[in-house]
């Protein structure tokens, strides 16, 4: 028999499924929720329900959104002809942090991953190709991760996207800003030499 009342045990089991939450943490969170006000507990339950009910993928770019098209794709001030391709929706925030990028996005929701049986046919790219074929795109920036899988994904996409009049670029990889080249590993150093530019 469980040492907790059934509703408590059930909440703990559900919380344990969250990333980074072990049994101890799940218990602590569950007791916190039990002790919190009815309003707070209700707000949490509603937020959890709404995220599934109200969020979906943008039909244009696959970003997670509550309105379709998403706020980037429907923006009046963004350059809709410049598309940055990323692996995950969370990558968008990293690019937005620069406050320099004014284009839109395309989210793949993953990358080619042979060890997980994920090949190019599993990438969500049909709506990207449709946008390109409709002549709506001048440049595609491939911003997948600089890993074997991200690199293979970028190379595959570049082959699929190639059309006259569409520029395909890959983000640069190299020495992190503010660091010391003395501590750069050989791959990073090599990539930054390859990606050098005239000043």
């Amino acid at each position, binding site marked *: 028999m469980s040492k907790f009342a059934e509703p408590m045990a059930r909440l703990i089991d559900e919380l344990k499924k969250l990333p980074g939450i072990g049994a101890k943490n799940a218990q602590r969170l569950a007791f916190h929720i039990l002790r919190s006000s009815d309003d707070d507990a209700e707000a949490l339950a509603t937020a959890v329900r709404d995220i599934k009910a109200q969020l979906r993928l943008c039909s244009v770019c696959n970003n997670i959104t509550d309105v379709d098209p998403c706020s980037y794709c429907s923006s009046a001030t963004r350059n809709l002809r410049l598309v940055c391709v990323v692996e995950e929706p969370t990558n968008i925030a990293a690019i937005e942090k620069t406050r320099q990028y004014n284009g839109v996005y395309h989210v793949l929701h993953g990358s080619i991953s042979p*060890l997980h049986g994920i090949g190019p046919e599993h990438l969500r790219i049909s709506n990207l190709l449709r946008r390109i074929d409709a002549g709506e795109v001048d440049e595609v920036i491939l911003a997948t991760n600089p890993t074997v899988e991200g690199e293979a994904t970028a190379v595959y996409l570049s082959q699929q996207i190639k059309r006259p009049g569409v520029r395909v670029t890959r983000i640069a990889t190299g020495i992190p800003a503010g660091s010391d080249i003395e501590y750069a590993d*050989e791959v990073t150093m090599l990539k930054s030499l390859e990606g050098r530019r005239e000043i």
Partner: protein
Amino acid sequence: MPLKDSEAVVLRSYPLREADLLVTFFTRAEGKVRGVARSAKKSKRRFGGALEPLTCVKLYYEDRERQELARIDSCEILDSPLTTAVDYARAVALGHVAELLDELLPEREANDALFRLTVAVLRSLRAGAIWMPLTYFELWLTRLVGFLPELGECVVCGQTLNGSRAFYHALADGLMCAGDKRLASSEMTPESRALAAQMFRTPVETMAQQVWPKSKAADLRKFLIQILERHLEKKLVTASMLDKLQ
């Protein structure tokens, strides 16, 4: 416990908790070792690209009392798959090497010959030229883990197959003569058997200039994968992905 060090090949890494990575290595000193790289997911500074699968590294690690997983202290890159071009086919080929080693290696059992084979094959596995090194790897791997039957004689009657036709089947333990072949067997061409013999005599570096089409020695690779999958009692994810490559 004392810090150990070894040359190693990174096989796989999985996220563990919020910021850590669980990494499987093929070390030269101790064979397959699994360990935890603390904060490797968050702070790339400490490990950089060194934990990328199929990177050859100098690994520093420490065993912890009564714990199965080692603590990964640091990694220096010796050779990275990212230094040469990566395309989809090469990514699948690299994944295949990782999957085979991860599935076949027992924990903490050194295999120096297999380690040297792996490092040499990874060096010759280039974009646009994957089939020779892959065939070489599968052949030698099957032999070094002890699953390769004698290719010169029929597994049923023992008759020599030199100069005569040879057949293989998913459920047979070796090659068969025309008289003993099972229903729905496939033939292994004399050319592929000659290539196997050549690969047993020749270092992979010597053959590295050869660019094979996918069709070359495809029967030999199929035969080897059937043997390995039968021993593993499971299908290899990357084998079917290699099949689908153009």
